[in-house]
Protein backbone atom coordinates (compact mmCIF):
# COMPACT_ATOMS: atom_id res chain seq x y z
CA UNK A 1 0.00 0.00 0.00
CA UNK A 2 2.70 2.42 0.96
CA UNK A 3 4.35 1.81 -2.40
CA UNK A 4 1.35 1.49 -4.68
CA UNK A 5 -0.51 4.72 -3.95
CA UNK A 6 2.48 7.10 -4.30
CA UNK A 7 3.58 5.27 -7.44
CA UNK A 8 0.12 5.60 -8.96
CA UNK A 9 0.08 9.30 -8.09
CA UNK A 10 3.49 9.77 -9.69
CA UNK A 11 2.43 7.88 -12.82
CA UNK A 12 -0.74 9.97 -13.02
CA UNK A 13 1.28 13.17 -12.68
CA UNK A 14 3.74 12.12 -15.41
CA UNK A 15 1.01 10.96 -17.79
CA UNK A 16 -0.90 14.20 -17.27
CA UNK A 17 2.20 16.22 -18.09
CA UNK A 18 3.14 14.16 -21.14
CA UNK A 19 -0.29 13.67 -22.66
CA UNK A 20 -1.10 17.28 -21.87
CA UNK A 21 2.08 18.40 -23.61
CA UNK A 22 1.30 16.49 -26.80
CA UNK A 23 -1.55 18.71 -28.10
CA UNK A 24 0.34 21.79 -26.98
CA UNK A 25 3.42 20.60 -28.88
CA UNK A 26 1.35 19.95 -31.98
CA UNK A 27 0.03 23.49 -31.66
CA UNK A 28 3.54 24.88 -31.16
CA UNK A 29 4.74 22.88 -34.15
CA UNK A 30 2.04 24.28 -36.42
CA UNK A 31 2.08 27.83 -35.13
CA UNK A 32 5.86 28.00 -34.75
CA UNK A 33 6.50 26.64 -38.23
CA UNK A 34 4.00 29.16 -39.56
CA UNK A 35 5.74 32.09 -37.92
CA UNK A 36 9.14 30.83 -39.04
CA UNK A 37 7.85 30.71 -42.62
CA UNK A 38 6.08 34.11 -42.40
CA UNK A 39 2.59 32.60 -42.30
CA UNK A 40 -0.08 33.04 -39.64
CA UNK A 41 -0.80 29.34 -39.13
CA UNK A 42 -4.01 27.75 -37.85
CA UNK A 43 -6.46 30.33 -36.53
CA UNK A 44 -9.92 29.26 -37.67
CA UNK A 45 -11.28 26.61 -35.27
CA UNK A 46 -13.14 28.29 -32.44
CA UNK A 47 -15.42 27.65 -29.50
CA UNK A 48 -18.02 30.43 -29.40
CA UNK A 49 -15.62 32.71 -31.23
CA UNK A 50 -12.72 32.07 -28.84
CA UNK A 51 -9.88 30.70 -30.93
CA UNK A 52 -6.95 30.88 -28.46
CA UNK A 53 -4.56 31.55 -31.36
CA UNK A 54 -5.23 28.12 -32.86
CA UNK A 55 -5.15 26.11 -29.61
CA UNK A 56 -8.63 24.80 -30.41
CA UNK A 57 -7.27 23.08 -33.51
CA UNK A 58 -5.84 20.01 -31.71
CA UNK A 59 -9.34 19.27 -30.38
CA UNK A 60 -10.75 19.59 -33.87
CA UNK A 61 -7.96 17.37 -35.23
CA UNK A 62 -8.64 14.61 -32.73
CA UNK A 63 -12.40 14.77 -33.35
CA UNK A 64 -11.78 14.52 -37.07
CA UNK A 65 -9.44 11.54 -36.69
CA UNK A 66 -11.94 9.78 -34.41
CA UNK A 67 -14.69 9.94 -36.99
CA UNK A 68 -12.57 8.85 -39.94
CA UNK A 69 -12.78 5.40 -41.42
CA UNK A 70 -10.38 2.91 -39.85
CA UNK A 71 -9.07 1.37 -43.05
CA UNK A 72 -6.98 -1.76 -43.42
CA UNK A 73 -5.36 -2.40 -46.79
CA UNK A 74 -5.84 -5.72 -48.54
CA UNK A 75 -2.96 -8.15 -48.02
CA UNK A 76 -1.85 -6.57 -44.79
CA UNK A 77 -1.21 -8.68 -41.73
CA UNK A 78 -4.36 -8.23 -39.69
CA UNK A 79 -2.96 -8.73 -36.21
CA UNK A 80 0.40 -7.01 -36.58
CA UNK A 81 -1.16 -4.14 -38.48
CA UNK A 82 -3.46 -3.43 -35.55
CA UNK A 83 -0.77 -4.06 -32.95
CA UNK A 84 1.94 -1.76 -34.33
CA UNK A 85 0.52 1.66 -33.36
CA UNK A 86 -0.31 0.46 -29.87
CA UNK A 87 3.18 -0.97 -29.45
CA UNK A 88 4.79 2.27 -30.61
CA UNK A 89 2.69 4.35 -28.25
CA UNK A 90 3.09 1.96 -25.32
CA UNK A 91 6.86 1.87 -25.66
CA UNK A 92 6.99 5.63 -26.04
CA UNK A 93 5.36 5.97 -22.62
CA UNK A 94 7.46 3.25 -20.91
CA UNK A 95 10.72 5.23 -20.72
CA UNK A 96 9.27 7.81 -18.35
CA UNK A 97 9.32 5.26 -15.53
CA UNK A 98 13.01 5.88 -14.82
CA UNK A 99 13.23 9.61 -15.40
CA UNK A 100 13.51 11.61 -12.14
CA UNK A 101 11.30 14.67 -12.38
CA UNK A 102 12.22 16.00 -8.94
CA UNK A 103 14.33 15.28 -5.90
CA UNK A 104 11.91 14.11 -3.20
CA UNK A 105 8.76 15.43 -1.62
CA UNK A 106 8.33 15.28 2.12
CA UNK A 107 4.74 14.93 3.27
CA UNK A 108 3.96 14.25 6.93
CA UNK A 109 7.52 13.30 7.65
CA UNK A 110 7.77 10.68 4.89
CA UNK A 111 10.06 11.26 1.91
CA UNK A 112 8.81 10.16 -1.48
CA UNK A 113 11.29 10.04 -4.35
CA UNK A 114 9.92 11.77 -7.41
CA UNK A 115 10.70 8.94 -9.82
CA UNK A 116 8.40 6.06 -10.65
CA UNK A 117 11.00 3.28 -10.68
CA UNK A 118 14.41 4.16 -9.28
CA UNK A 119 16.25 1.38 -11.11
CA UNK A 120 19.97 1.02 -10.44
CA UNK A 121 20.39 0.27 -14.16
CA UNK A 122 18.19 3.17 -15.28
CA UNK A 123 20.36 4.07 -18.26
CA UNK A 124 20.40 0.52 -19.60
CA UNK A 125 16.61 0.46 -19.27
CA UNK A 126 16.37 3.69 -21.28
CA UNK A 127 18.59 2.30 -24.05
CA UNK A 128 16.71 -1.00 -24.12
CA UNK A 129 13.29 0.60 -24.34
CA UNK A 130 14.44 3.18 -26.89
CA UNK A 131 15.56 0.46 -29.28
CA UNK A 132 12.33 -1.46 -28.70
CA UNK A 133 10.53 1.52 -30.21
CA UNK A 134 11.81 0.46 -33.62
CA UNK A 135 9.85 -2.79 -33.41
CA UNK A 136 6.55 -0.95 -33.65
CA UNK A 137 7.80 1.04 -36.62
CA UNK A 138 9.10 -2.03 -38.44
CA UNK A 139 5.94 -3.95 -37.62
CA UNK A 140 3.76 -1.15 -38.94
CA UNK A 141 5.80 -0.81 -42.11
CA UNK A 142 5.95 -4.53 -42.80
CA UNK A 143 2.34 -5.38 -41.89
CA UNK A 144 1.01 -2.65 -44.18
CA UNK A 145 2.10 -4.63 -47.26
CA UNK A 146 3.18 -1.43 -48.94
CA UNK A 147 6.62 -0.96 -50.44
CA UNK A 148 7.00 2.65 -49.30
CA UNK A 149 5.96 1.82 -45.75
CA UNK A 150 8.38 -1.11 -45.82
CA UNK A 151 11.26 1.03 -47.05
CA UNK A 152 10.50 3.56 -44.33
CA UNK A 153 10.60 0.84 -41.72
CA UNK A 154 13.92 -0.47 -43.08
CA UNK A 155 15.43 2.98 -42.94
CA UNK A 156 14.20 3.40 -39.40
CA UNK A 157 15.95 0.18 -38.36
CA UNK A 158 19.29 0.99 -39.95
CA UNK A 159 19.17 4.52 -38.59
CA UNK A 160 18.38 3.25 -35.11
CA UNK A 161 21.27 0.76 -35.20
CA UNK A 162 23.73 3.39 -36.40
CA UNK A 163 22.81 6.08 -33.93
CA UNK A 164 22.20 3.90 -30.88
CA UNK A 165 25.94 3.26 -30.73
CA UNK A 166 26.77 6.96 -30.56
CA UNK A 167 24.02 7.40 -28.02
CA UNK A 168 25.47 4.64 -25.87
CA UNK A 169 28.98 6.06 -26.15
CA UNK A 170 27.77 9.55 -25.21
CA UNK A 171 25.94 8.18 -22.19
CA UNK A 172 29.02 6.16 -21.21
CA UNK A 173 30.96 9.40 -20.71
CA UNK A 174 28.30 10.70 -18.33
CA UNK A 175 28.27 7.36 -16.58
CA UNK A 176 32.03 7.59 -15.97
CA UNK A 177 31.87 11.15 -14.66
CA UNK A 178 29.04 10.51 -12.20
CA UNK A 179 30.04 6.85 -11.66
CA UNK A 180 26.47 5.61 -11.57
CA UNK A 181 23.90 4.01 -13.87
CA UNK A 182 21.07 5.28 -11.71
CA UNK A 183 19.40 8.30 -13.32
CA UNK A 184 18.46 9.85 -9.97
CA UNK A 185 22.13 9.77 -8.91
CA UNK A 186 23.16 11.42 -12.15
CA UNK A 187 20.51 14.12 -11.75
CA UNK A 188 21.49 14.72 -8.13
CA UNK A 189 25.20 14.79 -9.01
CA UNK A 190 24.59 17.67 -11.40
CA UNK A 191 23.57 19.91 -8.50
CA UNK A 192 27.20 20.31 -7.42
CA UNK A 193 29.33 23.27 -8.41
CA UNK A 194 32.77 23.09 -10.01
CA UNK A 195 35.24 25.60 -8.51
CA UNK A 196 32.35 27.01 -6.54
CA UNK A 197 30.53 28.75 -9.41
CA UNK A 198 30.15 26.50 -12.47
CA UNK A 199 27.16 24.10 -12.24
CA UNK A 200 28.37 20.55 -12.77
CA UNK A 201 25.91 19.90 -15.57
CA UNK A 202 26.53 17.15 -18.10
CA UNK A 203 27.12 19.69 -20.85
CA UNK A 204 29.89 21.34 -18.80
CA UNK A 205 31.76 18.14 -17.97
CA UNK A 206 30.98 16.35 -21.25
CA UNK A 207 30.49 18.97 -24.01
CA UNK A 208 31.31 16.60 -26.88
CA UNK A 209 29.16 13.90 -25.30
CA UNK A 210 26.28 16.36 -25.02
CA UNK A 211 26.46 17.28 -28.71
CA UNK A 212 26.71 13.62 -29.75
CA UNK A 213 23.82 12.68 -27.49
CA UNK A 214 21.55 15.48 -28.71
CA UNK A 215 22.24 14.57 -32.36
CA UNK A 216 21.67 10.87 -31.62
CA UNK A 217 18.40 11.65 -29.83
CA UNK A 218 17.23 13.59 -32.87
CA UNK A 219 17.99 10.51 -34.96
CA UNK A 220 16.33 8.16 -32.48
CA UNK A 221 13.09 10.13 -32.38
CA UNK A 222 13.01 10.26 -36.20
CA UNK A 223 12.79 14.02 -36.21
CA UNK A 224 14.19 16.29 -38.86
CA UNK A 225 17.01 16.43 -40.05
CA UNK A 226 16.94 12.64 -39.51
CA UNK A 227 13.32 11.90 -40.42
CA UNK A 228 14.23 9.62 -43.32
CA UNK A 229 11.81 6.87 -42.24
CA UNK A 230 8.97 9.17 -43.23
CA UNK A 231 10.71 11.27 -45.89
CA UNK A 232 7.55 12.35 -47.68
CA UNK A 233 9.34 13.41 -50.84
CA UNK A 234 10.49 9.89 -51.67
CA UNK A 235 8.46 7.58 -49.40
CA UNK A 236 5.09 9.40 -49.40
CA UNK A 237 5.00 9.31 -45.62
CA UNK A 238 6.96 6.22 -44.67
CA UNK A 239 5.97 3.57 -42.19
CA UNK A 240 2.57 5.01 -41.26
CA UNK A 241 1.52 5.51 -44.87
CA UNK A 242 -1.42 3.07 -44.78
CA UNK A 243 -2.72 4.03 -41.36
CA UNK A 244 -5.80 6.13 -40.88
CA UNK A 245 -8.13 7.26 -38.14
CA UNK A 246 -7.08 6.74 -34.52
CA UNK A 247 -4.29 4.33 -35.46
CA UNK A 248 -2.60 7.14 -37.32
CA UNK A 249 -3.31 9.41 -34.37
CA UNK A 250 -1.46 6.95 -32.13
CA UNK A 251 1.61 7.01 -34.40
CA UNK A 252 1.42 10.77 -34.47
CA UNK A 253 1.09 11.06 -30.70
CA UNK A 254 3.90 8.54 -30.20
CA UNK A 255 6.19 10.79 -32.22
CA UNK A 256 5.51 13.67 -29.86
CA UNK A 257 5.78 11.43 -26.78
CA UNK A 258 9.17 10.31 -28.08
CA UNK A 259 10.10 13.94 -28.46
CA UNK A 260 9.17 14.61 -24.83
CA UNK A 261 11.24 11.60 -23.71
CA UNK A 262 14.15 12.80 -25.82
CA UNK A 263 13.89 16.23 -24.21
CA UNK A 264 13.58 14.68 -20.73
CA UNK A 265 16.67 12.53 -21.33
CA UNK A 266 18.71 15.46 -22.62
CA UNK A 267 17.61 17.44 -19.56
CA UNK A 268 18.32 14.66 -17.09
CA UNK A 269 21.68 13.64 -18.46
CA UNK A 270 23.18 16.91 -19.67
CA UNK A 271 21.23 19.90 -18.40
CA UNK A 272 21.01 19.30 -14.69
CA UNK A 273 17.72 17.40 -14.47
CA UNK A 274 15.56 19.08 -11.85
CA UNK A 275 18.43 21.17 -10.48
CA UNK A 276 18.20 24.94 -10.54
CA UNK A 277 21.76 26.28 -10.84
CA UNK A 278 23.01 28.00 -7.66
CA UNK A 279 19.69 27.31 -5.95
CA UNK A 280 20.00 24.01 -4.17
CA UNK A 281 17.24 22.73 -1.91
CA UNK A 282 18.99 24.05 1.22
CA UNK A 283 19.39 27.52 -0.27
CA UNK A 284 15.71 27.63 -1.26
CA UNK A 285 14.50 26.40 2.12
CA UNK A 286 16.60 28.86 4.10
CA UNK A 287 15.84 31.82 1.80
CA UNK A 288 12.21 31.07 0.99
CA UNK A 289 11.27 34.62 2.00
CA UNK A 290 13.35 35.97 -0.89
CA UNK A 291 12.87 33.26 -3.54
CA UNK A 292 9.09 33.04 -3.31
CA UNK A 293 8.31 36.77 -3.76
CA UNK A 294 10.77 36.93 -6.69
CA UNK A 295 9.10 33.97 -8.38
CA UNK A 296 5.60 35.38 -7.82
CA UNK A 297 6.74 38.83 -8.87
CA UNK A 298 8.11 37.54 -12.18
CA UNK A 299 4.88 35.63 -12.73
CA UNK A 300 2.92 38.81 -12.07
CA UNK A 301 5.10 40.82 -14.45
CA UNK A 302 4.65 38.27 -17.25
CA UNK A 303 0.87 38.07 -16.78
CA UNK A 304 0.59 41.87 -16.75
CA UNK A 305 2.58 42.26 -19.96
CA UNK A 306 0.46 39.62 -21.70
CA UNK A 307 -2.76 41.25 -20.46
CA UNK A 308 -1.61 44.64 -21.73
CA UNK A 309 -0.72 43.19 -25.14
CA UNK A 310 -4.16 41.61 -25.49
CA UNK A 311 -6.00 44.77 -24.45
CA UNK A 312 -3.95 46.86 -26.88
CA UNK A 313 -4.81 44.39 -29.61
CA UNK A 314 -8.50 44.54 -28.72
CA UNK A 315 -8.39 48.31 -29.03
CA UNK A 316 -6.55 48.24 -32.35
CA UNK A 317 -8.66 45.58 -34.02
CA UNK A 318 -12.07 46.75 -32.85
CA UNK A 319 -14.90 45.19 -34.92
CA UNK A 320 -12.41 43.62 -37.32
CA UNK A 321 -14.53 40.52 -37.94
CA UNK A 322 -17.98 41.69 -36.91
CA UNK A 323 -18.81 38.50 -35.00
CA UNK A 324 -17.94 36.67 -31.77
CA UNK A 325 -14.25 36.74 -32.62
CA UNK A 326 -14.09 40.45 -31.79
CA UNK A 327 -14.58 39.56 -28.13
CA UNK A 328 -11.52 37.30 -28.15
CA UNK A 329 -8.74 39.78 -27.19
CA UNK A 330 -10.90 41.08 -24.31
CA UNK A 331 -11.56 37.52 -23.15
CA UNK A 332 -7.85 36.67 -23.22
CA UNK A 333 -6.99 39.99 -21.60
CA UNK A 334 -9.42 39.32 -18.75
CA UNK A 335 -7.84 35.90 -18.15
CA UNK A 336 -4.34 37.40 -18.13
CA UNK A 337 -5.51 40.17 -15.79
CA UNK A 338 -7.04 37.62 -13.43
CA UNK A 339 -3.80 35.63 -13.35
CA UNK A 340 -1.84 38.82 -12.69
CA UNK A 341 -4.27 39.67 -9.88
CA UNK A 342 -3.86 36.15 -8.53
CA UNK A 343 -0.10 36.60 -8.44
CA UNK A 344 -0.55 39.90 -6.58
CA UNK A 345 -2.84 38.28 -4.03
CA UNK A 346 -0.36 35.42 -3.57
CA UNK A 347 2.42 37.99 -3.23
CA UNK A 348 0.50 39.87 -0.56
CA UNK A 349 -0.37 36.70 1.29
CA UNK A 350 3.19 35.35 1.20
CA UNK A 351 4.50 34.94 4.71
CA UNK A 352 8.13 36.02 4.82
CA UNK A 353 8.96 32.73 6.45
CA UNK A 354 7.37 29.39 5.74
CA UNK A 355 7.54 26.46 8.12
CA UNK A 356 10.36 24.05 7.23
CA UNK A 357 7.85 21.47 5.97
CA UNK A 358 6.06 23.93 3.68
CA UNK A 359 9.35 25.41 2.51
CA UNK A 360 10.60 21.96 1.58
CA UNK A 361 7.45 21.26 -0.45
CA UNK A 362 7.81 24.66 -2.12
CA UNK A 363 11.43 23.83 -3.02
CA UNK A 364 10.28 20.53 -4.51
CA UNK A 365 7.60 22.23 -6.58
CA UNK A 366 10.14 24.76 -7.81
CA UNK A 367 12.47 21.95 -8.87
CA UNK A 368 9.72 20.04 -10.64
CA UNK A 369 8.83 23.30 -12.35
CA UNK A 370 12.46 23.73 -13.43
CA UNK A 371 12.50 20.19 -14.86
CA UNK A 372 9.27 20.70 -16.79
CA UNK A 373 10.53 24.06 -18.01
CA UNK A 374 13.76 22.56 -19.34
CA UNK A 375 11.84 19.71 -21.00
CA UNK A 376 9.51 22.17 -22.70
CA UNK A 377 12.50 24.19 -23.88
CA UNK A 378 14.13 21.14 -25.46
CA UNK A 379 10.83 20.15 -27.07
CA UNK A 380 10.87 23.60 -28.61
CA UNK A 381 14.44 23.00 -29.81
CA UNK A 382 13.22 19.84 -31.57
CA UNK A 383 10.56 21.88 -33.37
CA UNK A 384 12.92 24.77 -34.02
CA UNK A 385 15.54 22.52 -35.64
CA UNK A 386 12.90 20.76 -37.73
CA UNK A 387 11.83 24.01 -39.37
CA UNK A 388 15.40 25.19 -39.86
CA UNK A 389 17.31 22.29 -41.39
CA UNK A 390 16.74 20.32 -44.56
CA UNK A 391 16.65 16.53 -44.39
CA UNK A 392 19.92 14.60 -44.75
CA UNK A 393 20.47 12.41 -47.75
CA UNK A 394 20.61 8.74 -46.84
CA UNK A 395 24.34 8.32 -47.49
CA UNK A 396 25.06 11.53 -45.58
CA UNK A 397 23.11 10.16 -42.65
CA UNK A 398 25.12 6.95 -42.62
CA UNK A 399 28.50 8.63 -43.09
CA UNK A 400 27.72 11.11 -40.32
CA UNK A 401 26.73 8.31 -37.99
CA UNK A 402 29.56 5.90 -38.69
CA UNK A 403 32.45 8.06 -39.86
CA UNK A 404 32.07 11.13 -37.67
CA UNK A 405 30.03 10.44 -34.60
CA UNK A 406 31.29 6.97 -33.77
CA UNK A 407 35.02 7.89 -33.78
CA UNK A 408 34.21 11.13 -31.97
CA UNK A 409 32.32 9.22 -29.30
CA UNK A 410 35.21 6.78 -28.84
CA UNK A 411 37.75 9.61 -28.65
CA UNK A 412 35.56 11.39 -26.13
CA UNK A 413 35.46 8.24 -24.03
CA UNK A 414 39.27 7.88 -24.07
CA UNK A 415 39.81 11.54 -23.18
CA UNK A 416 37.27 11.30 -20.36
CA UNK A 417 38.93 8.17 -19.01
CA UNK A 418 42.39 9.76 -19.02
CA UNK A 419 41.04 12.94 -17.44
CA UNK A 420 39.26 10.98 -14.71
CA UNK A 421 42.40 8.92 -14.03
CA UNK A 422 44.53 12.07 -13.67
CA UNK A 423 42.15 14.19 -11.56
Amino acid sequence: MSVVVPSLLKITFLLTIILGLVPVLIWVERKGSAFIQDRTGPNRASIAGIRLAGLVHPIADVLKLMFKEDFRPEGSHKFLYALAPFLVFFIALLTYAVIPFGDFIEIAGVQYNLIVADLDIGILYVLAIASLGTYGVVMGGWASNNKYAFLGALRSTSQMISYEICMGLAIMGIMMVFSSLRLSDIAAGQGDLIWGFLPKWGIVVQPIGAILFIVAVFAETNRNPFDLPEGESELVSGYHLEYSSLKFALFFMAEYCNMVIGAALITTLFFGGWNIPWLSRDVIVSNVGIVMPIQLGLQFLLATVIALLFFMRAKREKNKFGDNRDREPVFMGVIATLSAAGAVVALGATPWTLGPGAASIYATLLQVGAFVGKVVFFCWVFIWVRWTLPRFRYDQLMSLGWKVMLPLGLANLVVTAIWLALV
Partner: protein
Amino acid sequence: MSRDSKLHRWHHRMNFGESLYLGEVFRGMGITMGHLLKNLFWTKDMPTVQYPEEHRDYSNRFRGRHRLMQREDGTEKCVACMMCSTACPSDCIHITAGEHSDPSIEKYPETFEIDLLRCVYCGLCEEACPVDAIRMDTGIYEIAGTSREQFYVNKEFLLNDNQQGTL
Protein backbone atom coordinates in the same frame (compact mmCIF):
# COMPACT_ATOMS: atom_id res chain seq x y z
CA MET B 1 34.26 36.08 -53.11
CA SER B 2 31.17 36.97 -51.15
CA ARG B 3 29.31 34.41 -49.13
CA ASP B 4 26.17 34.41 -51.29
CA SER B 5 27.88 33.82 -54.59
CA LYS B 6 29.68 30.91 -52.96
CA LEU B 7 26.37 29.33 -52.04
CA HIS B 8 25.16 29.49 -55.60
CA ARG B 9 28.07 27.53 -56.97
CA TRP B 10 26.99 24.04 -57.84
CA HIS B 11 30.10 22.19 -56.71
CA HIS B 12 30.80 24.03 -53.52
CA ARG B 13 33.14 22.11 -51.27
CA MET B 14 32.41 22.86 -47.66
CA ASN B 15 35.31 24.38 -45.77
CA PHE B 16 36.29 22.95 -42.42
CA GLY B 17 33.99 25.17 -40.38
CA GLU B 18 31.01 24.34 -42.53
CA SER B 19 31.73 20.63 -42.55
CA LEU B 20 31.37 20.60 -38.76
CA TYR B 21 27.69 21.51 -39.39
CA LEU B 22 27.22 22.92 -35.90
CA GLY B 23 28.10 26.52 -36.65
CA GLU B 24 25.91 26.55 -39.73
CA VAL B 25 23.09 24.87 -37.80
CA PHE B 26 23.18 27.62 -35.19
CA ARG B 27 23.33 30.27 -37.91
CA GLY B 28 20.23 28.77 -39.51
CA MET B 29 18.47 28.58 -36.18
CA GLY B 30 19.25 32.25 -35.65
CA ILE B 31 17.63 33.09 -38.97
CA THR B 32 14.47 31.12 -38.25
CA MET B 33 14.24 32.57 -34.73
CA GLY B 34 14.57 36.04 -36.22
CA HIS B 35 11.60 35.37 -38.50
CA LEU B 36 9.60 33.90 -35.63
CA LEU B 37 10.17 36.86 -33.31
CA LYS B 38 9.49 39.36 -36.07
CA ASN B 39 6.16 37.71 -36.86
CA LEU B 40 5.28 37.25 -33.20
CA PHE B 41 5.68 40.90 -32.23
CA TRP B 42 4.88 42.60 -35.53
CA THR B 43 1.98 40.39 -36.57
CA LYS B 44 0.47 43.28 -38.52
CA ASP B 45 3.42 43.32 -40.92
CA MET B 46 2.77 39.75 -42.03
CA PRO B 47 1.67 39.54 -45.66
CA THR B 48 -1.22 37.18 -44.83
CA VAL B 49 -4.70 38.46 -45.62
CA GLN B 50 -7.52 36.97 -43.49
CA TYR B 51 -9.41 36.27 -46.67
CA PRO B 52 -13.16 36.01 -46.20
CA GLU B 53 -13.10 38.93 -43.77
CA GLU B 54 -10.37 40.97 -45.44
CA HIS B 55 -9.86 41.49 -49.14
CA ARG B 56 -6.83 42.59 -51.04
CA ASP B 57 -7.00 45.88 -52.89
CA TYR B 58 -6.90 45.30 -56.63
CA SER B 59 -6.07 47.82 -59.31
CA ASN B 60 -8.95 49.57 -61.09
CA ARG B 61 -7.84 47.82 -64.28
CA PHE B 62 -8.43 44.39 -62.73
CA ARG B 63 -10.71 42.33 -64.99
CA GLY B 64 -13.47 40.88 -62.86
CA ARG B 65 -16.81 39.37 -63.81
CA HIS B 66 -18.52 41.01 -66.79
CA ARG B 67 -21.49 43.34 -66.72
CA LEU B 68 -23.71 44.70 -69.47
CA MET B 69 -24.18 48.46 -69.72
CA GLN B 70 -27.58 50.14 -69.88
CA ARG B 71 -28.89 53.08 -71.83
CA GLU B 72 -30.42 55.93 -69.87
CA ASP B 73 -33.86 54.37 -70.22
CA GLY B 74 -32.63 51.14 -68.65
CA THR B 75 -32.55 48.95 -71.79
CA GLU B 76 -29.37 47.18 -72.78
CA LYS B 77 -26.77 49.05 -74.83
CA CYS B 78 -25.83 45.86 -76.68
CA VAL B 79 -26.78 45.82 -80.37
CA ALA B 80 -26.15 42.07 -80.85
CA CYS B 81 -23.41 42.62 -83.43
CA MET B 82 -21.64 39.41 -82.33
CA MET B 83 -18.24 41.14 -82.26
CA CYS B 84 -17.60 39.99 -78.71
CA SER B 85 -18.57 36.40 -79.25
CA THR B 86 -16.44 36.35 -82.42
CA ALA B 87 -13.45 37.80 -80.59
CA CYS B 88 -13.87 35.48 -77.62
CA PRO B 89 -11.02 32.93 -77.64
CA SER B 90 -12.84 30.51 -75.38
CA ASP B 91 -16.22 30.68 -77.07
CA CYS B 92 -18.10 31.52 -73.92
CA ILE B 93 -20.48 34.27 -75.11
CA HIS B 94 -23.75 33.09 -76.64
CA ILE B 95 -26.07 35.73 -78.16
CA THR B 96 -29.42 35.32 -79.88
CA ALA B 97 -30.16 38.47 -81.84
CA GLY B 98 -33.66 39.88 -82.19
CA GLU B 99 -35.19 42.81 -84.13
CA HIS B 100 -35.58 45.96 -82.06
CA SER B 101 -38.86 47.85 -82.17
CA ASP B 102 -36.97 51.14 -82.53
CA PRO B 103 -35.88 51.39 -86.21
CA SER B 104 -32.80 53.46 -85.29
CA ILE B 105 -31.38 50.63 -83.19
CA GLU B 106 -31.88 47.68 -85.56
CA LYS B 107 -30.99 44.73 -83.28
CA TYR B 108 -30.93 43.77 -79.63
CA PRO B 109 -29.92 40.56 -77.84
CA GLU B 110 -32.91 38.38 -77.00
CA THR B 111 -30.59 36.28 -74.87
CA PHE B 112 -27.05 37.12 -73.81
CA GLU B 113 -25.36 34.33 -71.90
CA ILE B 114 -21.81 33.97 -70.68
CA ASP B 115 -20.42 30.64 -69.56
CA LEU B 116 -18.20 31.80 -66.70
CA LEU B 117 -16.58 28.37 -66.43
CA ARG B 118 -15.19 28.75 -69.95
CA CYS B 119 -14.28 32.42 -69.72
CA VAL B 120 -10.55 33.13 -69.41
CA TYR B 121 -11.04 36.79 -68.39
CA CYS B 122 -8.86 38.03 -71.25
CA GLY B 123 -10.91 41.17 -71.86
CA LEU B 124 -11.08 40.81 -75.67
CA CYS B 125 -14.89 41.10 -75.62
CA GLU B 126 -14.56 44.43 -73.88
CA GLU B 127 -12.15 45.68 -76.55
CA ALA B 128 -14.17 44.32 -79.44
CA CYS B 129 -17.43 45.97 -78.43
CA PRO B 130 -18.22 48.95 -80.72
CA VAL B 131 -20.85 50.45 -78.39
CA ASP B 132 -19.18 49.93 -74.97
CA ALA B 133 -21.93 47.55 -73.91
CA ILE B 134 -19.81 44.95 -72.12
CA ARG B 135 -17.34 45.80 -69.41
CA MET B 136 -15.25 43.80 -66.95
CA ASP B 137 -14.82 46.54 -64.38
CA THR B 138 -16.96 45.10 -61.57
CA GLY B 139 -13.91 43.84 -59.70
CA ILE B 140 -15.84 40.70 -58.73
CA TYR B 141 -13.61 37.65 -58.56
CA GLU B 142 -15.43 35.42 -56.10
CA ILE B 143 -17.06 33.33 -58.79
CA ALA B 144 -18.23 30.17 -57.10
CA GLY B 145 -21.25 27.91 -57.38
CA THR B 146 -22.52 24.48 -56.52
CA SER B 147 -23.71 23.52 -60.01
CA ARG B 148 -22.64 24.19 -63.58
CA GLU B 149 -25.94 25.94 -64.36
CA GLN B 150 -25.10 28.64 -61.85
CA PHE B 151 -22.11 29.68 -63.94
CA TYR B 152 -24.22 30.11 -67.07
CA VAL B 153 -25.19 33.72 -66.38
CA ASN B 154 -27.97 35.37 -68.39
CA LYS B 155 -28.74 38.86 -69.66
CA GLU B 156 -30.87 39.92 -66.69
CA PHE B 157 -28.12 38.95 -64.29
CA LEU B 158 -25.42 40.81 -66.21
CA LEU B 159 -27.53 43.88 -66.88
CA ASN B 160 -28.50 44.70 -63.32
CA ASP B 161 -25.79 45.59 -60.83
CA ASN B 162 -25.52 42.19 -59.23
CA GLN B 163 -22.77 41.89 -56.67
CA GLN B 164 -22.76 38.08 -56.48
CA GLY B 165 -20.30 36.17 -58.63
CA THR B 166 -22.77 33.69 -60.11
CA LEU B 167 -26.50 33.14 -60.39
